[in-house]
């Protein structure tokens, strides 16, 4: 069985949206989710060692969301997200070495060390950042969708936000414009239940977040964000819908982050039992692993081989980040304005 580095993006058509999921694809899901998990664990370690400073928001627990979504996206479809962005970059095909080097503020990072964890970009990967202001990426991604439509392409703009962002006014400005102008955009709400230390119940008057765009006539759905297959299927349908020119779509993926909001999080807003239960009963990687072994009859050896490869990639990324030089002090002044 061939294990691909990353599932090749496909042209999602209505027909394809119905296509069965192959074993190779499930293995690719497993691989991509494991890459994010191990990468984030390593980032957490480097943070603890003082090699990553400032803010660092780990994606551990939420892997099925971005992997399920992006496995249904195609070449040239763009991604924009908030500050919990490492997983999105890895799945978009950005080099783990460059991402880790950016986390450690090195010259070899995607933004030459000047962006850090929350602010990374790749034109090549159609990854439009990495944004540190809650909700600010949502109208930006709406503008990207506008540009795609203006140019007459059928590319889709995937805009990720958290449950905290859905109470920002600019999200509704975006919904209105996207519906008014029938823009090819998918809004993915990653509902991990907590905006920093405040639960959805304490921050939102209504708790079904996918219906927030319904008054604008934007269709939406809720999906188990801990099940990559479920996310993938919903994503295929949504992308086919949007690519057909039918206008925007909203997906609320119900997910969970295991770690704190950022690296310093007193964890007083939820119980240890709640976190433990999610990890034990709903872990997205365990779910796929069980399905691969029990239903698809993939051997432990195949999975172990993947585990080893991922470990190697992550170790290599960490080594690269630690051995890379810091940016030249002259870089302080570059890329402020065009002349600089």
């Amino acid at each position, binding site marked *: 069985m061939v294990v691909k580095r990353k599932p090749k993006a496909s042209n999602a058509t209505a027909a394809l949206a119905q296509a069965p999921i192959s074993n190779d694809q499930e293995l690719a899901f497993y691989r991509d989710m494991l890459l994010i998990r191990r990468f984030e664990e390593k980032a957490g370690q480097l943070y603890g060692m003082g090699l990553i400073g400032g803010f660092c928001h780990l994606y551990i627990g939420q892997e099925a969301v971005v992997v399920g979504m992006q496995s249904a996206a195609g070449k040239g479809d*763009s991604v*924009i997200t908030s500050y919990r962005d490492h997983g999105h970059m890895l799945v978009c095909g950005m080099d783990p070495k460059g991402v880790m080097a950016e986390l450690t503020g090195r010259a070899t990072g*995607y*933004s*030459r060390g*000047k*962006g850090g964890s929350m*602010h*990374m*970009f*790749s*034109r090549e990967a159609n990854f*439009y*950042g*990495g*944004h*540190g*202001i809650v909700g*600010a990426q*949502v*109208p*930006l*991604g*709406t*503008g*990207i*969708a*506008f*540009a*795609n439509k*203006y*140019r007459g392409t059928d590319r889709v703009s995937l805009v990720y936000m958290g449950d905290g962002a859905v109470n920002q*006014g*600019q999200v509704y*400005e*975006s919904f*209105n*414009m996207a519906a*008014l102008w029938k823009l090819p955009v998918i809004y993915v709400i990653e509902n991990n239940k907590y905006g920093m230390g405040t639960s959805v119940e304490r921050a939102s008057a209504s708790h079904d977040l996918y219906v927030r765009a319904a008054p604008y006539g934007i269709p939406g759905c809720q999906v188990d964000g801990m099940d990559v297959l479920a996310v993938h299927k919903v994503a295929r349908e949504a992308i086919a819908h949007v690519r057909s020119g039918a206008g925007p779509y909203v997906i609320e993926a119900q997910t969970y982050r295991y770690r704190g909001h950022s690296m310093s999080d007193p964890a007083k807003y939820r119980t240890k039992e709640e976190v433990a239960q999610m990890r034990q009963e709903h872990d997205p990687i365990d779910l796929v692993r069980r399905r691969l072994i029990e239903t698809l009859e993939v051997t432990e050896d195949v999975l172990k081989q993947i585990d080893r490869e991922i470990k190697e990639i992550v170790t290599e990324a960490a080594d690269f980040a630690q051995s890379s030089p810091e940016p030249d002090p002259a870089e302080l002044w*570059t*890329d*402020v*304005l*065009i*002349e600089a």
Partner: protein
Amino acid sequence: MTTMNMVKALNSALDVMMERDPNVLTFGEDVGYFGGVFRVTEGLQARYGRERCFDTPIAEGGIVAAAIGMGAHGLRPVVEIQFADYIYPAFDQIVSEAARLRYRSAGQFNAPITIRSPYGGGIFGGQVHSQSPEGLFTHVAGLKTVVPSNPYDAKGLLISAIEDDDPVIFLEPKRLYNGPFDGHHDRAVRAWAGRAEAEVPDGYYRVPLGKAAIVRAGEAVTVLAYGTMVHVAMAAAEEAQIDAEIIDLRTLIPLDIETIEASVRRTGRCVIVHEATRTSGFGAELIALVQEHCFYHLEAPIERVTGWDTPYPHAFEWEYFPGPARVIQALRRVMGDAT
């Protein structure tokens, strides 16, 4: 050449650029069908279609953010914020996104957008239709801020702004749209027609960003002004018969410090005039720069004439507005003549 007021000149700039570059598009509140509250986009929708000149919801944050996204993806949007006073809902997007995109993506992405907005007083707009917020933008690294003072410059600067790969805040002195205004509100309104700056080429030309204009040569004192205050300063110098050199900054960022420095070193005196409130206004930055560059050439303390540190009042429009009388007082003070 055609005689144009500032509205027509700005319209012509948009027309020229939309004709030349299919990636240029313009939108905002009432911009499309209606042609803009001050008529700057009149006729553009009819000429270029609803895809390229269109109305938006009243949602300034969304308007600017959508433009940034378009710009990052290769378009060159020009948005209109109907009054500069309405720009604050978009402030987050301007400061946190537009101004930072190039830096934090290490040059991979940029926001080649132009945000046009009428600003300033003199039309009894009251507190939220009269403000001069330029200092909020000059304080932010990663933005350019442009303020034209006449039709010729307005067109040439707007073309430069649209072609510029950085985000440009383009503030249009709305009291100058239909004619030069020197602060004498009790005199007859004048039109642009008949003035050299109103003779505007029909086609493409640029007035470069970062180049000030010496609009009146003089030896006794240097006056730094922009927008409406250029005309106020001119009137003040003529009426007081002071040999003032008046520099129209035209762009605040990038600033033409060379022209300022050369003039102040020669005159040894400097008066700065702006309509915006005084504290932390752009005049404070100019004073700092002039003393850094020209300290040993100064013959007198630098003066600034500004709006007061109050909201823009409706009833006291002309007490707030820094008219020629206040500029003359400042000129006389720096000349050592207290009369």
